[in-house]
């Protein structure tokens, strides 16, 4: 059986794997658990399964219809967001919500109810899903929409692929009149600054910030805030993005250490001399900066890495974020990929949707000694602030905590197809038995 891993490369499983080329080829086995997988950009165990039957959806990329008057796009679930963009951009449409990589499938975007830089205005991906064709082992093909089979719809968006195999889905796009955005990069000196900037940028459709998670003391929480909006120059030619760099092998472990990361962060913060830098940016470099580096996950070496992504409710955001950053920077284990973003108040209908009104912090950590201890310290802070963690990013979330973060997990369990499971969900359930 082939060995399969996820983006974080911390966990590897043995599982058989099927590559359906048509919808009829999708077979949910009865004698072992199944799980549909896409491009496996989830970091942890939510897209993995031991000794099961993985259903690789990547060959199912047919577009069923594209109404370029109304911006309604209907396709098989294995199509990637990158490919969707290549089709919709020339017609003047864009993804309503996009995560920081375009290398995820339509099915994966739904199953993780992904969010993007416009969450404060547009909410999550689920809001734009008009219908889902769901294949389950116990019923005929189910069509779920926000009003029809509503419960199954809400369980499936953000449902980690557990409610059935998402065969295809119809989404509403948003109109654009250019492939370029006007963007501003603004330096901030602490978390207070960041929160003020976020508040002031509420009418900018896209906002995100990089935070220096290594700096301490008076520079704690310094970073660069980016905001952008599409311009209207009618330039809609689609240029296939080039991968500029490829990491051909796992980088030796010593390359990324506290000193090199500190140096990177120091330089990155100072590369921008002025407090505000305004520029015109192509959508690809604004939304997907890391996509230009092929296999960047190899930078973290052969032991892989974790991402810790939490959201902290608005009320206590400042103190809690400072506390988190303080613990991280004094541990010296942070990395150069640390992101802050304000979530708006739009609630997703997904039972297990991650975002809530507040601020999310996402950081990568090389898999090394003591990292799990650091995470449990961070967990305590997140719990006491009534925040939560993102299953798509997590490779180790304690089941008891997960249940606390997502009290509706039992409703999802009720909707789960009994022949579908994931390594992540198995661990959630195993906690129950103990």
């Amino acid at each position, binding site marked *: 059986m082939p060995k399969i891993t996820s983006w974080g490369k911390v966990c590897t499983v043995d599982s058989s794997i099927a590559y359906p080329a048509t919808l009829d080829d999708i077979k949910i086995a009865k004698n072992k658990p199944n799980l549909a997988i896409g491009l496996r950009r989830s970091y942890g165990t939510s897209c993995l399964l031991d000794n099961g039957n993985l259903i690789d959806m990547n060959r199912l990329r047919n*577009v069923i219809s594209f109404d370029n008057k109304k911006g309604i796009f209907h*396709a098989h679930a294995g199509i990637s967001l990158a490919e969707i963009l290549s*089709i919709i951009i020339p017609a003047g449409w864009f993804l309503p919500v996009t995560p920081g990589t375009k290398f995820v499938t339509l099915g994966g975007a739904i199953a993780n109810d992904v969010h993007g830089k416009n969450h404060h205005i547009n909410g999550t991906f689920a809001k734009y899903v008009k219908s889902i064709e769901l294949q389950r082992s116990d019923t005929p093909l189910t069509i779920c929409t926000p009003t029809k089979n509503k419960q199954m719809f809400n369980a499936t968006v953000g449902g980690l692929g557990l409610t059935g195999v998402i065969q295809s889905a119809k989404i509403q796009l948003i109109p654009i009149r250019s492939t370029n955005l006007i963007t501003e990069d603004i330096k901030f000196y602490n978390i207070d600054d960041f929160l003020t900037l976020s508040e002031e940028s509420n009418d900018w459709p896209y906002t995100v910030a990089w935070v220096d998670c290594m700096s301490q003391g008076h520079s704690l929480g310094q970073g660069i805030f980016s905001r952008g909006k599409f311009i209207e120059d009618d330039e809609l030619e689609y240029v296939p993005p080039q991968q500029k760099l490829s990491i051909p092998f796992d980088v030796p472990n010593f390359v990324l250490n506290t000193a090199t990361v500190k140096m990177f962060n120091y330089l990155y913060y100072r590369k921008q001399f002025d407090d505000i830098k305004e520029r015109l940016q192509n959508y690809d470099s604004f939304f997907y900066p890391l996509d230009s580096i092929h296999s960047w996950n190899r930078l973290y070496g052969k032991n892989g890495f974790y991402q810790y992504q939490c959201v902290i409710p608005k009320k206590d955001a400042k103190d809690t974020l400072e506390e988190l950053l303080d613990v991280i920077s004094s541990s010296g284990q942070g990395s150069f990929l640390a992101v802050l973003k304000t979530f708006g108040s739009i609630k997703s209908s997904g039972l297990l949707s991650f975002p809530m009104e507040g601020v999310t912090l996402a950081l990568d950590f090389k898999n090394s000694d003591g990292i799990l201890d650091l995470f449990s310290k961070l967990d305590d802070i997140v719990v006491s602030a009534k925040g939560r963690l993102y299953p798509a990013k997590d490779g180790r979330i304690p089941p008891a905590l997960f249940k606390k973060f997502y009290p509706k997990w039992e409703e999802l369990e009720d909707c789960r197809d009994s022949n579908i499971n994931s390594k992540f969900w198995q661990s959630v359930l195993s906690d129950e038995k103990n």
Partner: protein
Amino acid sequence: MKKINSVLIIGATSSIANEVARLYAVQKCDLTLLARNEEKLKEIKSDLTARGAKSVKCLSGNLASKKTIEELFTKATASGSYDLVLIAYGVLCEQEKMEQKPELIADVINTNFTSVTLWCEKTVNFLNEKNNGCLAVIGSVAGDRGRKKNYVYGSTKAALDSYLQGLTQRFDDTGVHILTIKPGFIDTPMTDKFDKGGPLWAKPEDVAQDIVKAIDKNKRVIYTPWFWFFIMFVIKQLPYFIFKRLPI
């Protein structure tokens, strides 16, 4: 090469052909698709239309029988002209099976070679009437040196290779351009029986990009992905006493 507006694909349900068609659909071309499986063609048609194809015409029938080739060719060329003809069908039959049942070999040769040459002759003459266009044919690296694991398949592709070399020379001074495509290991349903671990396996969508680029650049032969040129170069040069020991 002038811009391609109109494309005829023979064997349009094959993975590589499907990916090539998707690229030309985005370029808003008129596409004519030939394949045996009518159902699959229908699905491909809606996909290509949604992706931007100006028009998609589908014709189904047995591509490897003399009689239907005549019919399909007439229908496909009844109206208009083509800038590109891509021949992309073939069968990969298990070598062992054919050793046990040699009569199967004739079928494989007919599908992979004889019928393909019929299509080539007909379409290349059609292109030549307008003194314009490209005929692109999918061969295989397997044709570069016969080996015990698949020498029947390999020999059909070797024959096709020689045939196309001659055809290329015949049309050298004309406006018709002939491209021989030699894919390596491609991750398609046709090769699902193999263990696909390792860096040599490529995705059909990447191969399709290579093909479109080669057509644009008027290349005569391409190996795709590119490194297969070097792999096959070495394999062709290997002395037999080494070659025979290789587990390939």
